[in-house]
């Protein structure tokens, strides 16, 4: 059991490609991969609560950066940390929460954090399934995760 590694899937399970992180965790669980997993429907401070105390964390989330749907990107906390003033508390970003965690708890946050983004095609419609290209990308991400934790 890879207890030192946590795979954290982020997304809304009901909104098509926004659910890629949830889907990745579903696949890991279906394949009985022995790694702790968690899902969150939010990118608030609950993310910090979940990753704190772990040596190594892999986060899977959707992106809408203009890439081809299904594109997999690996980014750092600094890459996704934005310094904008918030318009509302719902606009909290994954980068902001992680950066805050590392600022306040440098000794307790994961030393190794991998953030894997899958470019979404459709996050506007209700569905408990991803679009085909994005679903394929989730399988690719899961293979990469299995490789990382092997």
């Amino acid at each position, binding site marked *: 059991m890879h207890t030192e590694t946590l795979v954290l899937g982020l997304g809304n399970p009901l909104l098509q490609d926004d659910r890629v992180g949830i889907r990745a965790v579903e696949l890991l669980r279906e394949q009985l991969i022995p790694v702790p997993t968690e899902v969150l429907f939010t990118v608030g401070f609950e993310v910090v609560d979940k990753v704190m105390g772990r040596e190594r964390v892999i986060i899977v989330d959707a992106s809408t950066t203009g890439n081809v749907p299904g594109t997999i990107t690996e980014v750092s906390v600094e890459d996704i940390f934005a310094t904008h003033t918030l318009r*509302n508390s719902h606009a909290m970003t994954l980068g902001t929460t992680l950066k805050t965690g590392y600022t306040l*708890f440098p000794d307790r946050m994961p030393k190794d954090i991998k953030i894997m983004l899958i470019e979404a095609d459709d996050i506007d419609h209700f569905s408990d399934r991803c679009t085909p290209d994005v679903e394929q990308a989730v399988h690719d991400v899961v293979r990469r995760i299995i490789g990382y934790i092997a």
Partner: protein
Amino acid sequence: MKKIEINPITRLEGHGKIAIFLNDDGNVDEAFFQVVELRGYENFLQGMPIEEVPRTVSTICGVCRGVHFTSAMKASDQIYGVEPTPVAKKLRELFFNAHYVEDHAVVLYALGLPDFVVGPEAPAAERNLVGLVKAVGAEIGRDVLTKRASAVKIFEMLGGKPIHPVAAVPGGWSKKITEAERQQLIAWSKDLVELGKLTINVFDKIVLQNPKYMELVTGDMYKVTTNYMGTVNEKGQIAYYDGIQKVVDPKGKEIASFTGKEYLDVISERVVPWSYLKVPYLKQMGWKGIVEGAGTSLYSVGPLARFNVGNGMDTPLAQEAYEQFMDTFASRPVHYVQAYHWARAIELLNAAEKCFQLAQDPELTDPNTRAELGKVTGEGVGITEAPRGTLIHHYKTDDKGIVTNANLIVATTHNKGPINIAVRKAAKHFIKDGKVDDGILNYIEMGFRPYDLCLACATHAVGQAQTPLSIDVFDSQGALHKTLNNF
């Protein structure tokens, strides 16, 4: 006429914008806050068993998950004609108040306080949560996040599942509590009370003792005079989980009260040509337009509205802070929107004290957490005070409890009219002779930030969440004159 356009939000249920129109002298003539709310869930819920609805609506928003869950659960009680058992009600209230603490903490520390701590004219790159931590010190930041995590732990333990609650059942609560768990709840609740006291102290030092910031809190540029709606208990004190909904006019006189389906007799909605979102108003007054002052039919909800509707708090430390709040302003109701943040800080303490009171109740371990279901009534209205304001979930079902119709009214919808006025007044005060810059842009945003708009929550994909903001300035001929960005 010049047109200044602030395009802040391009996310799923709320791609909105602010358009500011200048007259030929370069001063503000009019301003509009435009927003599109997500209505998809109302259709999506149709055909679903009502007992499944709380778990589903909790995904409407990653932040407000617990309040949608609770309103839908209360509606399901009515649809099954059942009253929750006493212990179930206490467990629900403890869950709900813990949710209040963690939500109010995030809003205050991530959204409200950076304006005051880092300064309203500070560069946007510093006027944020990380800037706040640098300004107040990492020790306080660590303390806040650590104690706030205790609220999340209560939410998780009682909700029956990490983060996303599943414990709702019509007439009850599926998670039973052991004595050991109750002792843990007491310990976590103590943390929350300490967080509440700390927050009151931080607000006092940073805002209340700073005359310049108090000018913003008590200044007419952020004064919006409307009616107010909120929920009170049988003593008239502010209530969150349950109570009677009450409305007061701009002078503080009670003009309406209602429960459940009676909201339809009190609230009406007006279609306006410049927005997809209807503007709610008080039916008894008739539509008067987006206007403030005596006779307006607009009403506000949220922490400040609750302070104006209620006669106090039901816990000792929060009551003390409430009295200080009311003594600070010359008269009540208090119409200054920056006071929303102060009211939010006091409510955080109040909710924390309630958690502590509820956790100490030995009855919490009573295993009788569910009442027998009654006959399906076919209709239920669940009303709670969400942290941002009154939240109404109204469902109709067939005789098997399958949803046939759903209507959800959220706080940001209630506040649509007042937010427009807040933006208009701030713009008129700060934009002179056509001069706008990043600092002025922030002062205008401070007009709507206290309401903490619930616009962007159902998705959070990376690349979407930054809500970039730009102002396009058009000359009197409609040509683009200047663009300002804060990203």
